[in-house]
């Protein structure tokens, strides 16, 4: 007979469910089924609004800045187009990445479909990848579409830099989304909880334009690095400094560590 202490030592925690669904093997057939379903979910009315809003925001802001410049008798400067791109990309990366991922997981819990999935031989890693990859792909697509929406025509090197930074930021934001999803039981609590960090992640780089302190703080956020990348793309000086890459890398690692710790403690859903 095993005692609870022995069992807990074996599993490393207590009370949570799904801990035993391993984070080890990925079955392509299961992953592809989840991926296709989650990709379709991206286009439902609850989720498509964010990507559309983001690319729309870039376009509208470009028109707005353009009309301002025109009224001053000037042509729209690429650096201003970069600001419009930065706004859209920040909204997209945070709102789509964190909010949509977190709310999708919370919805699975609220509607009890997560339980159904996990009792259908899907493991934790398959669910994680199935939940994050479509969102990351959507972030990437919207960030790409936002470039022509801002009226920019970057060089190949600038495109490569933009894609690379977007991919890294998409990873960071979707892992953050999963963390919030684990912590929330319903979509309402998810949207409430997520709104604060999302605002911080968007507003700090935006206010960095006006405040030295905010600019400094922005340098320590992956959204700040994304904002700088937008400016670099607009200026066609495709460079991301080592510090910026280090910030994104460190934040991905930190988010992954928090996610794994939460998952080990309670699985995706605390009992």
């Amino acid at each position, binding site marked *: 007979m095993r005692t*609870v202490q022995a069992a807990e030592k074996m*599993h490393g925690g207590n009370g949570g469910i799904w801990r035993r669904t391993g984070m080890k093997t990925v079955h392509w057939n299961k992953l592809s089924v989840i991926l296709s379903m989650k990709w379709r979910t991206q286009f439902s009315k609850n989720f498509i609004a964010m990507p559309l809003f983001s690319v729309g925001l870039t376009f509208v802001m470009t028109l707005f800045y353009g009309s301002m410049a025109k009224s001053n008798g000037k042509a729209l400067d690429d650096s201003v187009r970069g600001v419009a791109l930065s706004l859209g990309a920040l909204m997209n990366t945070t709102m789509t990445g964190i909010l949509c991922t977190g709310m999708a997981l919370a919805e699975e819990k609220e509607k009890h479909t997560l339980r159904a999935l996990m*009792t259908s031989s899907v493991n934790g890693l398959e669910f994680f990848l199935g939940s994050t990859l479509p969102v990351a792909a959507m972030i990437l697509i919207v960030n790409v579409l936002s470039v022509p929406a801002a009226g920019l025509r970057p060089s190949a090197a600038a495109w490569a830099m933009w894609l690379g930074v977007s991919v890294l930021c998409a990873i960071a934001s979707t892992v953050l989304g999963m963390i919030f999803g684990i912590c929330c039981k319903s979509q309402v609590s998810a949207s409430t909880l997520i709104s604060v960090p999302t605002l911080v992640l968007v507003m700090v780089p935006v206010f960095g334009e006006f405040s030295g302190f905010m600019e400094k703080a922005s340098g320590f956020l992956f959204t700040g690095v994304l904002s700088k990348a937008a400016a670099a793309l607009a200026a066609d000086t495709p460079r991301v400094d080592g510090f910026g890459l280090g910030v994104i890398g460190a934040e991905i690692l930190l988010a992954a560590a928090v996610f794994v710790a939460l998952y080990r403690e309670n699985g995706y859903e605390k009992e």
Partner: protein
Amino acid sequence: MAKEYIRLEHISKKFGEATVLRDLNAVLHRGEILGFLGPSGAGKTTTIKILTGQLKPTSGDAYVLGIHVEKIDETIYEQIGVVTDQSGVYERLTVYDNLKFFARILGVPGERIEELLKRVGLYEHRKKPAGKLSKGQAQRLVLVRAVLHRPRVLFLDEPTSGLDPSTALDIHRLLEELREEGMAIFLTTHNMEEATKLCDHVALLNDGQIVEYGTPEELCLRYNQDKRYRVLLSDGSRLLLGQEAEDVGRLSRLLQANQVNSLHSCEPTLESVFLTVTGRALG
């Protein structure tokens, strides 16, 4: 002897200081239905969660298809089906797409979906979004999803709770068919009539403890000490007679005088057995 699919040995479960399961022992064989009966909070759902690897026991051992529950991983779900009161459906997907989604995960061919939909009367509703199904239809959908991959063991947590009698009957019929096909079914319910009708063995659960275990007939006979007979006489009056000499003599005289229209023995039901054993009613 049929193959043993589930074994519980001295299973106990505590949440903090509260003990919710105490020293449970039970066995379920291939082609059998084992009913765990008890009121809400008796520990039925916790037992299912332990057996399906969603919770670990505080002490004791349990085996599902020969695998210790603490060694269960996600591959066990390729051989078992689970229906709980919290089995959700993807409301935006149609009935058919819900099943297709899980069929693809479990590697089940599409023909199986159609076969099962016809069997439970959901075929006409296959294009309906799952969110628009009635409670009974949604429960049938969840049940179909759980048996898509022909699991060897099916766990059902209150499968007919809150359903109308006709839908409950459909589900009973399906469960009987699945048992005939060799599936072992672990059923929790507080509906004693359902348990009497479906189960090969029942465990009466009270405050996390099995207070009686056996076939429904065995349990009813075990508590049939105070035998009573309901007599309908030809003049329309009714009598309830016991086994005392006076009652036996009276019954004998009535029979000889051809005054008895009908005579029924009053065996206890599982409900009355539960009441006798625990001193509390179900519900």
